[in-house]
């Protein structure tokens, strides 16, 4: 057996919001095995929700993730509506669709920025984060908050989109799209990024199905699934838009899927604003009868699943929540093994888990001497990009 070393990463992950612990087993530069430990910041929201009323449940699931703070409440509301078939007014469905797509826009932009950072493209990072601002501004104008919008409730939405906001949304959306065009050109036509990301961290179609991967992670591997089309909710079935798929399954394909999806999201928002009918926004349901319901929606990272069981009281007996990353996460076993340490960073980032850069990572050899810190892993990744740049003669 060759000389193996263990690289512990965590319990605060340098790339991801939730603290988690990675163990990469390496032979030299090559990753030969990987294991992951999560739960360091487990908040027990499923258990807490059992002690809350249905209105409060929506409120608490909104806090699961700051970026998906429209996806979880909609999924939860749909699960409760599914128990007894509560009707949601037309206009509320449109507003739900609009907030969902705006959320997807800023979430994908955020990912693009971070992916740029890990590869040593700090300009892409600055651009990505700057250019998602118009979307956050729209959210602030429409809902009153940049994140955690508190827009959704069982039976409808809490706030209407005012008539005077429509032109503002369209103006800021145009502004966003102009920058996206530029960013798309800069990223997708860059020969260095092609060399750096193509063929890296491939998730095969068979593996994606076997792990039931979701969202852009599955679509980049040629699995043509999208909850918005397959299990229609909101008003997606009345609008014209496309599901973006790629067949390669590598990191580049995942980036392409996300970038092209942003255009589709903008199309959906525009159509919604054009065709939105007037009317009530809330059906004001009173009682939830005993029963069980399931809500599925397409969050930016894939399908978000809520199961709610009710015994006739005003709080759930059981509330199961499954976020998309839960299914996408274990695919690392397929994608990271066999790659180099310098590619592991971007492969880990490619499924778009929630990030946060907390510096608690060290690499130790058997003598417990520190070899790498979090910054070093990002540096390794950035250096590889630099080498490719020099080889291609790109400054």
């Amino acid at each position: 057996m060759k000389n193996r070393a263990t690289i512990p990463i965590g319990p605060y992950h340098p790339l991801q919001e939730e603290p988690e612990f990675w163990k990469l087993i390496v032979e030299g530069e090559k990753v030969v095995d990987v294991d992951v430990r999560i739960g360091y910041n487990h908040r027990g929201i499923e258990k807490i929700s059992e002690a809350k009323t249905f209105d409060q449940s929506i409120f608490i699931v909104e806090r699961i993730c700051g970026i998906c703070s429209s996806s979880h409440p909609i999924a939860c509301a749909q699960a409760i509506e599914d128990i007894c078939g509560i009707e949601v007014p037309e206009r509320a469905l449109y507003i739900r669709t609009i907030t969902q797509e705006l959320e997807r826009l800023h979430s994908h932009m955020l990912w693009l920025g971070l992916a740029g950072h890990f590869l040593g493209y700090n300009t892409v990072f600055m651009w990505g984060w700057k250019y998602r601002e118009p979307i956050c501004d729209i959210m602030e104008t429409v809902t009153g908050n940049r994140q955690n919008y508190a827009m959704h409730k069982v039976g409808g939405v809490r706030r209407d989109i005012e008539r005077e906001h429509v032109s503002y949304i369209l103006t800021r959306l145009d502004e966003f799209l102009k920058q996206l065009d530029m960013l798309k050109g800069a990223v997708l036509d860059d020969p260095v990024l092609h060399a750096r990301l193509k063929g890296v961290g491939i998730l095969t179609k068979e593996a994606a199905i076997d792990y039931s991967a979701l969202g852009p992670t599955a679509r980049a591997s040629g699995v043509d699934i999208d909850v918005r089309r397959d299990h229609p909710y909101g008003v997606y079935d009345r609008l014209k838009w496309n599901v973006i798929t790629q067949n390669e399954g590598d990191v580049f394909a995942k980036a392409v899927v996300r970038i092209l999806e942003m255009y589709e999201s903008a199309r959906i928002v525009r159509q919604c604003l054009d065709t939105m009918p007037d009317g009530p926004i809330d059906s004001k349901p009173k009682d939830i009868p005993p029963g069980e319901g399931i809500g599925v929606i397409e969050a930016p990272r894939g399908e978000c699943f809520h199961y709610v069981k009710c015994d006739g009281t005003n709080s759930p007996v059981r509330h199961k929540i499954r976020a998309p990353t839960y299914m996408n996460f274990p695919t690392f076993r397929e994608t990271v093994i066999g790659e180099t340490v310098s590619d592991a960073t971007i492969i880990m980032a490619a499924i778009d888990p929630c990030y946060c850069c907390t510096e608690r990572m060290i690499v130790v050899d058997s003598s417990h001497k520190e070899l790498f810190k979090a910054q070093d892993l990002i540096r390794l990744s950035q250096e590889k990009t630099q080498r490719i740049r020099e080889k291609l003669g790109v400054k």
Partner: protein
Amino acid sequence: MAIDGLIKKIHDRFGDRILKTERKSAKRVYIDIYPKDIVDIAGYLFKDLGCRFNIASGVDDFNGIEILYHFAHDAHAVVITVRAILKDKDNPRIETITGVMKAAWWIEREIHELFGVEFDGNADLRPLLLPDDWPKGVYPMRKNFVVPKRDSRKG
């Protein structure tokens, strides 16, 4: 309707091995089965019908520990939920379905630690969410679990 076709296919294949079928709406169906049949049915749904495995949820109910396996049939916009009730709450056991699909790997670990269900044949039932020093036999998602009171003096 597409859902009726799917229900018929499942009934034709499994017949009296199915305890109860509840067609809740055009998009949702709940099928009760004997726990011993879970591998066959999960295999049929996943491999033959081409369903996607959503997730499994454990429920602590009066009758026992229920495990609900949710499968999405994307082509027909249907979510099929297969329910297995493990009556013996002191020693709930069911066979693993990780042999059918790897997607069930994490959720079996989760249900194992939160509900105390043994998945026979799953070699990797290490804790996923709870800390390594969590006391044995304490299952936080069971209804009899008492959330410890926070001592205000300790902050």
